[in-house]
Each structure stands twice: as C-alpha cells, then as structure tokens.
C-alpha cells in the first residue's frame, strides 16, 4: 500500500486550475522529488495535498484512506508534516518553543522526540534559547524541519528546503534529509536544485503546466536526455 497517492488532481485558486490531472505516488520510506520549471504547480501540488489549496477534482489517499480536502490539522493528526518554503518558523519564538509547538497536536512527554531532532540537528540544541527569527537561513531551515519532525511523521513534505542556501549548506541539507529518511520517514519534496535532489531520490516527477511529464527513478530521470535538455539545463 502506498504511503501517499494523489490521483488526477485538479486544484488552484479562484477557479483557475494550476494542477491539471497531476499524479503523485510515494511509497513508505521513499524520497520522492518533484522538479519542473517555475509555475509548473510544484508548490501547489504540495499545498493541495496538505489541504491548503482547494481541490476541485481528484483524490488524495494516505495509507489507503481518502484524505482529499481534509484540513491541515487533520493531516498533522495522521502523521503528515509539511514545511512551507517561506515564513516556515515562528520568528519571535525561541528554537525550543518552535519545536514544542511542532508537537502541539501530540501531547505528552516530548523528550524523546526532542532528543531525536537534536541528534539530527545538533546545532539546534546549542541555539535552543535563541529566537528563531535571528538565525541564519540554513539554521532556520533546520528549525522548520525540526518543528515538522516533532509529530514523529511517517511522511515529511518539504517545499524547496534548499532555496536561498549556500552550496555548502545545500549539500548539508540534502544529507540531513537522507538522515531523516533513514529513520523510516517518507519524504516528498519540491526542489529547484533538481540534479542534486534527483541524485538522492528513489523516484522523481517532472511537472510542467500542472501535468506530469515524466516520472521514473531519480537516477533514470537524470540519465534521460530529454529531461536533461528540457528541465535540468542541459
């Protein structure tokens, strides 16, 4: 059974469909990457799945149950965590408070979960008393991912986790994402750094104008000359 299955999604804002029949499929413990040009509907696909953009047609299944149009708090309750691209930390709250709020929907002792996040991102432990807003872009991304991990998700959805980061930090972020995946967490992410992302992906989707163009294993997509020429900059 697939962890996440999006079938024939039509979704958008104000009656205009940005997604036009998009399919996505995530097996548990996979890393799945969505790439494609600007305006292809990559972020919209994530938001639609998570209940943030109205779905006009089509279905989303999570572990076999239909979760189409469920509100975000229900998604969180099911073990799906989402990290938006921008404004993804509570800037005026400390790192520790950001993480604690991540666990809001899962009451009870959070020590084990905190330790898990700190073991993936040791820097967050050092900086836990700092307001998240004063941290660097890379550190903020760690806080955002850490916050999402606090519900012990089975599926982590990341929208451009490496946007605006330096090359060294991009490498580090991809390593951390693999670490997270090795804990048994499925990852669905949108990425502009397509080559690097596909290199660690079990499967990848190329989206253009809201439709699936290609889907294959990450390495196969990288090796596909058409994909390389049209979407990966030669």
């Amino acid at each position, binding site marked *: 059974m697939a962890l996440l299955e999006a079938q024939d999604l039509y979704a958008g804002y104000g009656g205009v469909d940005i997604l036009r029949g998009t399919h996505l499929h995530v097996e548990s413990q996979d890393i799945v990457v969505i790439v494609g040009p600007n305006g292809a509907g990559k972020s919209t696909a994530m938001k639609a799945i*998570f209940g*943030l953009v109205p779905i006009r047609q089509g279905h989303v299944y999570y572990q076999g149950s239909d979760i189409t149009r469920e509100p*975000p*708090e229900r*998604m*969180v*309750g099911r073990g799906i965590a*989402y990290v*938006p691209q921008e*404004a*993804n*930390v*509570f*800037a*005026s*709250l400390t790192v520790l*408070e950001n993480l*604690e*709020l*991540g666990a*809001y*929907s899962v*009451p009870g002792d959070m020590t084990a979960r905190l330790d898990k996040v700190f073991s993936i991102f040791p820097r967050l432990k050092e900086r836990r008393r700092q307001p998240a807003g004063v941290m660097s872009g890379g550190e903020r991304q760690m806080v955002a991912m850490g*916050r999402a991990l606090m*519900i012990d998700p089975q599926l982590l959805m990341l929208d451009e986790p490496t946007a605006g980061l330096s090359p060294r930090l991009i490498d580090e972020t991809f390593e951390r994402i693999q670490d997270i995946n090795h804990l048994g967490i499925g990852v669905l992410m949108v990425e502009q750094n397509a080559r690097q992302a596909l290199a660690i992906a079990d499967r990848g989707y190329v989206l253009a104008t809201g439709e699936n163009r290609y889907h294959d294993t990450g390495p196969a997509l990288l090796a596909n000359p058409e994909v390389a020429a049209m979407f990966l900059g030669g």
Partner: protein
Amino acid sequence: MVEFIQLLINGILLGSILALGAIGATMIFGVLRFAHFAHGDLMAVGAYFALAVVTIFNLPVLVALPVAMVLTAALAVGIDQVVYRRIRRVQPVILLISSFATALILRSLIQMIWGSSNQVYATGIQMPWRLGPFVLKPDHLLIFAAATGLVVLVHVFLTRSRMGKAMRAMSDNMNLALITGIPANRVIMWTWAIGGALAAAAGVFLGMDTRLHPVMGWTLLLPIFAATILGGIGRPYGAILGGLVIGCAMELSTLVIPGSYKPAVAFAIMVVTLIFRPQGIIKGAA
C-alpha cells in the same frame, strides 16, 4: 520637582490600567487581525459586574474583582462565538465595524441596567497617605500591586503554558500555526477569555481610582489603542510598556497644558508613532 514626581506616580497608576486594557487589545489584534473597538466598553462591563457583586453581596471590591474577571471573560468568549466567529473570514474592516456596534450595545446595556449616573464602589473618604510631600491613596498601591501581579501571571502564561505559546505562535505566523496543527478556535477562545478578564480588571481599577460611568471605558479606548500601537501591535510586552509611557505622558502633560488635553496627548503620540515608527517600540505587525 515635587509636582513632577506626584504626576509620575499618577501616570504609572493610569499606565498600569491602560496596560491591562492594551495587553488584551493587542493579543486580540495579534490573533484575529482586527482592532477591537468594544474593548473599552468591555472594561466598563467588568467594572459594573464588580459593582453588582459589591452591592448585592456586600463584599469588598477586591473580592468582587475575580468574579468580575470570570464573568467578563465568559461574556467576551460569548460575544465572539455569537458575533465575531460568523464573520471571521470576511474583510477585517467588517469585524472592526461590528465591534463598534458591540461597543454601543454593551454601553446601552450598562445604561439600561445600572443607569447613566456616576457610581462608586465604596462611599466615604479614604484617608490618603502622606509620604513627605507626596500623596498616595491606599487604593493606588492596591491597584498597582494587583496590576503588576496580573502582568506577571500573563507573562507566565505566555511563556510557560502550552496554550500561551500557541497564542504567541498564532500571533506570529497564522499560516504556520495552521500547518503545525495548532487548534485555531481554541486559541481564539482563550485569547478572548484573557483579554476579557484583563479588561475587567482594568475597568475595576479605573472604577476604584475614579468612579463608574457607562462611558468610562469608551473614553479610555483611544489611549489604549495608542499604547497598543506604541508598543508594537500584537506584542503583549510592548503593550505594557506602551501603556506606562502613554499613562505617564498624559499625566505629565498637565505640567504644560490644561488637563482636558490629556486624550489629545495620547492621540498625538499615536500619530507620531504611526508616522515615524509604525512597527512600534517592539517590532509589531503593523
């Protein structure tokens, strides 16, 4: 110099009353994104609730205070559920206008129930303390101590409790709070409850310091909004600071201009803040 310090004492007193009102107004703005025009009248309702307890059960006003706070908190939550909740998803200006209507309704209800003349919690003359050249009423010390206590409680709530942190999170980043799975409706109800309780305390303290009158809260709304804006909209700690600054400025202004211009001083500070530092002392949401 003596006059200056005496006015400063009065200013701190007025400031702590304003601060209690402003904390609620700023938290409501932070979580719901609209200026709650009925906040002053909520203060007045709280003051009259306490009056009811004082007159019916013949209890001292400090015992009536917690009762009034609970009742006003319940009223605030009730108003939100009946009125504001239905129009939460429309433009903020509609919420603002309906809060204006709520203000009128509350004020009229007070007039219908308690009449429109001045009333006091306790008759008789309270002998002021003379500390050298300064005059201090025992009530003033009580008000200041109770206001400080409430501010400390709010601080503990906001920084230690799960709900307090969720409230700050929602005020900080509504969209992310939603994504994180923070239950917006519960947070909103708590915000109203706390805003209402603090407004009631402010109203009771104002009534202790002066008198009760149906427009007592409405006339304080402008200084409260000034304190909210000066402190940074959506920032509870800024509201405390803003309240104290506005309160002291209003009292100290009587050194140079007639006392009837006090509200104008608050208004001037608000306008100057909006022109030169619209984000407030502590960077807010404006």
